[in-house]
């Protein structure tokens, strides 16, 4: 059929879309996705340098390369950076770039709100990290337990930077949560029923529900903390009857859903990558989807397994222990489904596939040690030891980050139009795999031998020396692998092989578009008849009953199609700036906060009256 001419609005012209101003004012989900990705990878370097400093300090007993207090700052900032500024925004990069493409939409439901989320995230991240230059970086741990965070025990500005920075990041995540749920539920292409959505989109949906329901609880926890520190209230002050455990409950009510916020996107990516490179549909896709939903749901009922040692009593311990073990079932279902997907497939061992397979194996190791912690008596021994550090690095590095790397190698050609170099990619994969096992596996032994977490140095002769040295060597191997990745990324960006539209023989809608996709994504709304629309288009329907006839009715197309695109706007960034000014003002002067609040109000009103 003759394709109709596409007429885009004037503000989408070539020259209007170049230059730094076009990035600052962009409301295009693809550009926002790229900005999320670049920011997250920059913070990845920062968090990685902090990890190297930690491992250098711990390489040998009785070292004093960094002082005790700065070590605490490093531990706190490494965790805060990797969780909130690396894994979450890198996942957000994929949500932004891929979800509208995968569901056949032109953009997200609220493009300007999306830009607001990005800028608020970026300002929040920079705000927390600016603490390094203003006296003191946060040093009370990423979990910020009361009453270590009280004025009495943390008199410096670090905790304020941390609390207000996280609050800002929370605003960004909540706004993105409302936006993405509305997008996924409402903006699917005709024929894309919920059960035909790609699993990655499903996992995004579950994650956003977790975000909007769990972040308000840490918002309250942080508000109470800020009031305690700035206005002298008594929420976490034991002398006045306040209970430090209140913080732990509120924090982990958020904190446990948060770990699924970190891992489910990677699970979604792996569920897209494995079928394509095994050339088989995802085995038992509905089970994978419902397992993800179940993980999200039960994830709200297990927070107290972080608190077994606080003495909640046998009833609470039993209930939380059971709920925690229950989560292993849907997780196990997913792992077996992934294995069944590659079973008997014609497998292509691309870098993306290797990272996906690495994800399955490493995540399983982390999952197994996780089930051990579900038992309160065992947890009493593990708590605050390096065994726990080993566990969550297997699920976070071995799980989330390997999964995200898989996503980068898989979607880089779509985003840039270039292929990433496969040979260097494989070197990156194997050095990551070796590096992470050399770093984190010995930590199991260290934990069993009684080495506590969060100590800045230790005495020799406990049998810890060799494993600490081993972990440090592993950490530098990981740094080397990251360096290889970044060189590959930049080299491929500069002169990588042309990717074409569909380099991997993909099954989902994003591969039907050019690489990179045009600004308006789809000329015409795609019509979806199965969960693998592009495979159906290329190879015919794989379903028993042929429902492709729906598209057979040739539609009479107009000669010209005018596409409405939202214009660029700087108001989202102005409002974000108001938000961060408001929070920063709480530390500087009330007048600054008032200016921030007024900026938010003026910006919001101006934004509302802007033509869409």
């Amino acid at each position: 059929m003759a394709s109709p001419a596409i007429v885009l609005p004037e503000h989408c012209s070539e020259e209007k879309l170049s230059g730094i101003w076009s990035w600052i004012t962009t409301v295009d989900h693809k550009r926002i996705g790229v900005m999320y990705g670049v920011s997250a990878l920059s913070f990845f370097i920062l968090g990685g340098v902090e990890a190297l400093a930690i491992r250098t300090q711990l390489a040998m007993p009785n070292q004093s390369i960094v002082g005790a207090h700065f070590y605490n700052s490093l531990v706190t900032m490494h965790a805060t950076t990797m969780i909130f500024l690396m894994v979450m925004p890198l996942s957000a990069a994929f949500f932004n770039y891929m979800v509208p493409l995968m569901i056949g939409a032109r953009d997200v439901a609220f493009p300007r709100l999306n830009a607001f989320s990005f800028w608020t995230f970026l300002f929040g991240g920079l705000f927390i990290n600016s603490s390094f230059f203003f006296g003191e970086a946060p040093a009370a741990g990423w979990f910020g337990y009361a009453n270590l965070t009280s004025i009495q025990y943390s008199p410096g500005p670090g905790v304020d930077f941390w609390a207000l920075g996280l609050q800002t990041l929370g605003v960004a995540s909540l706004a993105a949560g409302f936006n993405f749920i509305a997008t996924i539920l409402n903006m699917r292409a005709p024929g894309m029923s919920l059960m035909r959505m790609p699993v990655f989109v499903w996992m995004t949906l579950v994650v956003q529900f977790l975000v909007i329901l769990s972040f308000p609880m840490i918002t309250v926890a942080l508000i109470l903390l800020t009031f305690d520190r700035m206005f002298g209230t008594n929420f976490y002050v034991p002398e006045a009857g306040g209970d430090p455990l209140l913080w732990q409950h509120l924090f982990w009510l958020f904190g446990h859903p948060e770990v699924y916020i970190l891992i489910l996107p990677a699970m979604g990516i792996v569920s897209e990558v494995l079928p394509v490179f095994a050339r088989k549909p995802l085995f038992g896709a509905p089970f994978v989807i419902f397992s993800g939903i179940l993980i999200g749901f039960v994830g709200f009922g297990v927070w107290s397994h972080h608190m077994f040692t606080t003495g909640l009593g046998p009833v609470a311990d039993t209930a939380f222990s059971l709920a925690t073990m229950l989560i292993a079932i849907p997780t196990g279902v997913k792992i077996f489904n992934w294995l069944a997907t590659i079973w008997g497939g014609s497998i292509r061992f691309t870098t993306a596939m290797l990272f996906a397979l690495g994800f399955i194996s490493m995540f399983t190791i982390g999952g197994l040690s996780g089930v051990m912690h579900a038992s309160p008596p065992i947890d009493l021994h593990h708590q605050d030891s390096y065994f726990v550090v080993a566990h969550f690095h297997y699920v976070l590095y071995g799980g989330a980050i390997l999964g995200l790397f898989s996503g980068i190698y898989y979607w880089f050609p779509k985003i840039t139009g270039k292929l990433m170099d496969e040979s260097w990619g494989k070197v990156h994969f194997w050095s990551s795999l070796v590096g992470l096992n050399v770093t984190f596996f010995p930590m199991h032994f260290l934990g069993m031998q009684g080495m506590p977490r969060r100590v800045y140095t230790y005495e020799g002769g406990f049998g810890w020396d060799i494993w600490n040295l081993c972990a440090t060597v592993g950490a530098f191997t990981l740094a080397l692998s990251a360096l290889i990745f970044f060189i590959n990324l930049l080299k491929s960006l500069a002169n990588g092989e042309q990717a074409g539209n569909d380099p991997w023989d993909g099954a989902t809608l994003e591969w039907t578009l050019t690489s990179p996709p045009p600004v308006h994504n789809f000329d015409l709304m795609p019509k979806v008849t199965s969960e693998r629309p592009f495979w159906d288009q290329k190879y015919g329907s794989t379903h028993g009953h042929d429902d492709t006839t729906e598209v057979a009715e040739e539609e009479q197309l107009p000669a010209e199609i005018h596409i409405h695109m939202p214009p660029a706007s700087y108001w989202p960034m102005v409002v974000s700036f108001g938000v961060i000014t408001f929070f920063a003002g709480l530390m500087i002067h009330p007048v600054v906060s008032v200016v921030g609040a007024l900026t938010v109000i003026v910006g919001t009103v101006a934004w509302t009256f802007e033509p869409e």
Partner: protein
Amino acid sequence: MSSDHSAVSVHEHPPPSFGVPNLKLAFWLFLASDCMLFGSLIATYLSYRGKDQLFGNGPYPLDLFSVEVTTISTFDLLMSSVTMVLAVAAIQRGNMFQTRLWLGLTALLGAIFVGFQGYEFTHFYLEGLKLQGNLFGSTFYVLTGFHGTHVTLGVVWLLLVLATTFTKHRGMVTHLNVEVAGLYWHFVDIVWIVIFTLVYLMEYTV
């Protein structure tokens, strides 16, 4: 998609797959999220309730509460939900005069509620209930203060919608926009019913 014309304008998106407009859906989600916010604040209040008595650290709720005054302000806020419903009904009928009337009255009733709260805070403060004083002071002011902030923002929002009806932007005062403001307003009302019951009325149970 119409095929009768030689050129068609493809609007941003096809109709919502979920049957609810984007804005309304996003607002329902926001309210779900806000439930968790108030849930956490209320849980904090309840978990500390009565603890001051153990520490002999007054003043206590019954030293301060005047259930008559708070009942009047509660009635005022509930009536504002009625006027809000009337505003939504008016815009649905396209009656701009009544829309303005009911929106203005809702904002006024909301402002009166905030005024009651201002009176209550001042009165309690003078009676010796400090934010920094005891747990009741900390939890009471923060919980009701956050609710009061929600009401205040709601009043500002309603006034903005009202002001828009007099400007060249009056086309923006659509049924959907008024309805979404109404969703928020009713939510804030419902939260107050919970707070009034748990914070005030519960003190009078034996």
